[in-house]
């Protein structure tokens, strides 16, 4: 049950929300860049380092066994969280970016050739764009873009035309990190399936904010980053279908990813460890388990509902301001809690800087989506993005600060 009191008690779990910026209470609206962490996650880290820090997998001593159990325990939690058939399909990486690179390197290099096509959207994050662009360059393949329609939504009619039997993989974001646009993965997945293409979902923005089931989506790969969903920095996830991962060679070689090594021949370990070379980020993977527990407890439906409420309220209030432009779908139902905007005459840099004076943290710039900026015809945008601990009151304060921003820049003119 989600209600106003919940948000208050949620806020108590996040020590950073006590922070003051130049004496003003922090309003953290930069959640699409990274989320804040609850005390449960921070405690999981300190508890690990204070009580059972140890290298894993081959240790016979008590702490090593405890650490191994906790590390592999997070894998099981994540498998359940995304509704994966098996935890053997869950691979820990540094971030979503590395996860995509593994697919490009270990699947793409062996399955994409000259003349093949890779379909993405025009709103991909650089992480789901540059690796594919590079692969296309190397292989003589073609990168094909599903564009955004006039309504700010993805153009699904165009998707239907572009996804053909030349398409080898469709790689799309679950939610735009710039405009919040939620992509209808079922449509794209079906088109991919119909044309014999693989289907990769960049869940860096989607998994933290929307209920996500790989079985429902029916995708082949899903990637995401724990730091955007209450977890620590340094942990990403690559989920892939077992039969695909089984055929893929490792990207990195070294300790832990082997099952036997001689001067003559090395045999690769089984899934998921064959993709985890060297000492993993043990502590942060374990703490990621606490992040998953936290979200699981709240319920992802409730997370979504809370963010929708905030987004609707914020868009209404913002659009009352003269010369306010909000990019992407104008209907909050079609987007996550990410609002990219420009205020006529105020460059996003200045907007970000001035809001910071009021303790409000937003992001300004290209948001690692330069191709999308070009499509939108802007240099950059200002972006406010919400999460479970944000409140309506914070949005009121934010909208007031927007109005004040104009005054600062027109300082001279106004005197």
């Amino acid at each position, binding site marked *: 049950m989600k209600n106003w009191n919940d948000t208050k008690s949620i806020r108590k779990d996040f020590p950073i929300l006590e922070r003051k910026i130049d004496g003003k209470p922090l309003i953290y609206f930069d959640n699409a860049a990274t989320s804040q962490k609850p005390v449960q996650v921070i405690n999981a880290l300190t508890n690990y380092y204070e009580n059972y820090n140890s290298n894993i997998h081959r240790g016979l001593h008590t702490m090593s066994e405890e650490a191994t159990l906790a590390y592999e325990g997070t894998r099981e939690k994540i498998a359940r969280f995304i509704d994966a058939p098996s935890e053997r399909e869950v691979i820990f990486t540094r971030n979503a970016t590395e996860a995509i690179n593994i697919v490009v390197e270990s699947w793409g290099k062996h399955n994409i050739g000259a003349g093949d096509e890779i379909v993405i959207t025009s709103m991909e994050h650089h992480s789901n764009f540059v690796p594919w662009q590079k692969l296309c360059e190397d292989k003589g393949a073609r990168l094909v873009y599903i564009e955004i329609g006039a309504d700010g939504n993805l153009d699904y009619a165009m998707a239907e035309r572009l996804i053909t039997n030349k398409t080898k993989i469709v790689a799309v974001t679950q939610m735009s990190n710039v405009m919040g646009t939620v992509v209808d993965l079922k449509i794209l997945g079906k088109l991919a399936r119909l044309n014999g293409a693989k289907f990769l979902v960049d869940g860096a923005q989607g998994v933290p904010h929307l209920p996500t089931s790989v079985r429902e989506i029916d995708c082949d790969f899903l990637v995401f980053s724990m730091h955007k969903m209450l977890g620590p920095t340094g942990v990403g996830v690559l989920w892939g279908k077992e039969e695909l991962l089984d055929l893929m060679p490792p990207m990195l070689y070294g300790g832990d990813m082997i099952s036997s090594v001689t001067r003559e021949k090395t045999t690769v370990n089984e899934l998921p460890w064959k993709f985890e070379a060297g000492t993993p980020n043990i502590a942060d993977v374990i703490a990621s388990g606490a992040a998953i527990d936290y979200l699981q407890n709240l319920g992802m439906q409730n997370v979504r509902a809370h963010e929708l409420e905030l987004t609707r309220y914020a868009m209404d209030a913002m659009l009352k301001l003269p010369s306010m432009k909000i990019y992407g779908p104008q209907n909050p139902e079609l987007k996550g809690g990410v609002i990219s905007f420009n205020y006529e005459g105020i460059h996003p*840099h200045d907007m970000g800087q001035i809001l910071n004076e009021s303790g409000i943290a937003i992001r300004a710039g290209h948001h690692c989506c330069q191709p999308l900026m070009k499509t939108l015809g802007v240099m950059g945008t200002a972006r406010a993005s919400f999460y479970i601990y944000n409140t309506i009151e914070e949005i009121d304060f934010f909208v007031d600060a927007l109005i004040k921003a104009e005054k600062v820049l027109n300082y*001279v003119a106004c005197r």
Partner: protein
Amino acid sequence: MSLVDDLYRETILDHYHNPRNRGTIDDATVSTEGVNPLCGDELRLFLKIEDGVVSDIKLESRGCSINTASGSMMSELVLGKSLADAKAVISEFKNMMLNKGEDITLSEDLEELEALQGVKKYPVRIKCALLPWNTLDEGLKNK
């Protein structure tokens, strides 16, 4: 010190709202482009160099206040200067912006640029202030 004192001083806002030497030069002898990789801001710079003198300079950009003001001030200061003098101005300005220590006093004719010194408190914005200057530097390379 407040944001207004550091960043949005009168001089800067004046140049921001009324940027000097905005536009393009059709028969430019030099034209270069600059990008700020952090935010994507782009800048096109046109120069006419005649007899070793910057006889015309124009800038085209849609940058932030700092970027715009910095470019506008720069254009005024190098217009009509010899290449050697223009390069000296560039290096004096860059030196001021990249120096991490105390505030720096500039030579008298560059005094106005000191208004940009407050930007140093905001590391990310230093690149905004430098973009026009780096672009000019690039344009004058091998000249």
